[in-house]
């Protein structure tokens, strides 16, 4: 896993693309490592703390004030991409950014996913903006031949012959549009407007049935993650969950981003996570939930 340079870096927005209910924020960044599994690499699941240079630290209701956490959704050789959902003042401000605007970026932070060992199948399960870390995870595992843009260089991390299955759940069709961020995704929607009418965990159960040795990589709303955790506990499937928590610093300084650890005590999502082995958790509680930071 790569170390972050000490201190925020001042980067420039290259563009913000609409993706259904979401936005893809593209930032010019040649210094962040490419994704992979070696020590110096950017590990899929690592995140960044973002602050807009202009109009941050005030405004109606005087928020946002602190930086906000976002998974690196994609790494091209010249850009870092972030998937945004406007759920409050910080994400709203970031969604308003335009090409040329400047951004403070502290990254890469946290512990990411670890690749599947000895050719086991990777089940990528996500929902809402939780699909962001799964996108770069897929890019990295399959060598970026997936839904990634052309200039996506084949990452160091390519795992030869690994089989990747992508299962994504969304509330409605405008959100399901986000599935385009990944390659060959099976989609479930709560309202049945796209794909399977129901929960993504139902699709997951079927896949696990078929292949109990698969490894699950999940990121999404708290409810979904808890469903995945409970299911994998029952079936004895190993799962890596990318959690969220309200964060002030993102680098272990404030002790604000904790989730309860199995057997007592707490884990700091920013340094002990965001990717945490499901076995370390008794349950995923509402505050460790997917899209929506402190929700």
């Amino acid at each position, binding site marked *: 896993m790569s170390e972050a340079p000490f201190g925020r870096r001042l980067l420039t927005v290259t563009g913000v693309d609409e993706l259904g209910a979401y936005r893809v924020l593209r930032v010019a960044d040649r210094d962040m490592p490419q994704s992979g599994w070696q020590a110096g690499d950017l590990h899929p699941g690592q995140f960044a703390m973002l602050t807009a240079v202009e109009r941050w630290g005030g405004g109606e209701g005087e928020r946002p004030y*602190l930086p906000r956490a976002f998974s690196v959704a994609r790494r091209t050789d010249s850009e870092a991409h972030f998937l945004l959902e406007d759920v409050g003042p910080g994400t709203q401000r970031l969604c308003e950014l335009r090409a040329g605007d400047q951004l403070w970026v502290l990254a890469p932070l946290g512990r990411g996913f670890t690749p599947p060992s000895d050719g086991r199948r990777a089940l990528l399960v996500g929902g809402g903006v939780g699909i962001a870390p799964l996108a770069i995870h897929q890019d990295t595992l399959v060598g970026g031949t997936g839904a990634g843009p052309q200039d996506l260089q084949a990452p160091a991390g390519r795992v030869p012959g690994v089989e990747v299955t992508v299962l994504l759940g969304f509330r409605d069709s405008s959100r399901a549009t986000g599935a385009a961020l990944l390659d060959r995704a099976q989609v479930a929607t709560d309202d049945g407007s796209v794909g399977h009418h129901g929960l993504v965990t139902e699709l997951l159960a079927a896949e696990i049935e078929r292949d109990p040795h698969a490894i699950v990589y999940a990121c999404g709303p708290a409810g979904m993650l808890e469903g995945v955790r409970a299911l994998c506990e029952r079936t004895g499937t190993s799962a890596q969950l990318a959690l969220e928590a309200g964060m002030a610093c993102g680098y272990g*300084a404030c*002790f604000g981003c904790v989730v309860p650890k199995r057997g007592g005590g707490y884990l700091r999502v920013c340094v002990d996570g965001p990717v945490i082995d499901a076995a370390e958790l008794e349950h995923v509680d509402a505050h460790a939930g997917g899209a929506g930071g402190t929700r």
Partner: protein
Amino acid sequence: MPMPEGRAGLDERAWPRWISVLGRSRAKGRAMSIEFCGLTLVHPIINGSGTFDAIAARRVFGDALLADFPFSAYVSKTITLEPRVGNPPPRLWETAAGLINSIGLPNKGLRGYLAEDLPQLAEIVAGAGAAAGRGPVPLITNVMGASAEELSTLVGACEERPEIAAIELNVSCPNVKTGLDIGADPVQLEQVVSTVRNRTGKPLIVKLTPNTADVAACAQAAEQGGADAVSLINTLRATALAPRRSGQRAGESDGRAGESRGLWLGGGSGGQSGPAIRAVALAQVSAVAALVGVPVIGMGGVQSAVHACDLIDVGATLVAVGTESFRDPAAGSRIALGL
């Protein structure tokens, strides 16, 4: 209580010694340096206790942290006699120009700190000093106890460790259920300080509580008890309610009264920090510096060199940066360079 005029940096002679040094040194392009309780610091900016976990930062940033260590002295988070896991989440709430925290002082307890954390911290401050071609960055250990006895044990144990350059007593943390807040009562405070004073020859800093009627009287009590310095302000007692609808924005709600709503923070209430408390901090530091002879460490909402200078101009010798480090891990260096 209004400030006596003639104070607040109005009077040349009232400025801390290092400022003239700083003035000269800037002219000569040399690094500034400050005497603080017998310690020599390269600049006046340190961290607020509990706002910078050097061990975690070292893991996240690697040697780059040592090369650009942002503080001229490093203050540990508060250590208690027994281990604490801290408060249940959520622990954070963003406010108008600030932050409420309800962390609950998680720490490994005295034994765990001395055995596991202190050696790592010692290595970090040594590395940070070495990177600048100097000795170790002075390490200050912050301790809290519910009684004079507890504090004595903590201070006594720190006294025996050469890695520890100074000790800070936290008699003020508002978001932990210690029952009575010793720091708020001058009489009690003086007793406690004089008791622990005998347990150490190291510089003893008392971190005052801002949640009191007369902080200057408390500072004076600490001084009479034998404190070598006082530090302030800690966070102001504050709280927040859970937002009505998740994702709902402040100010956006139609605000139906009487909806059943709980407290947001797992710990119930917490402490306000950040820009919102800056003017309160300036008043308290000013009132304290006007009354006590020992050096004062000022903090509260410092985001820039201007804010640090304000505290220095009202009599602070050192300035601590807390919440701003969350926004910018290198804030300490940025501010020190701006001086």
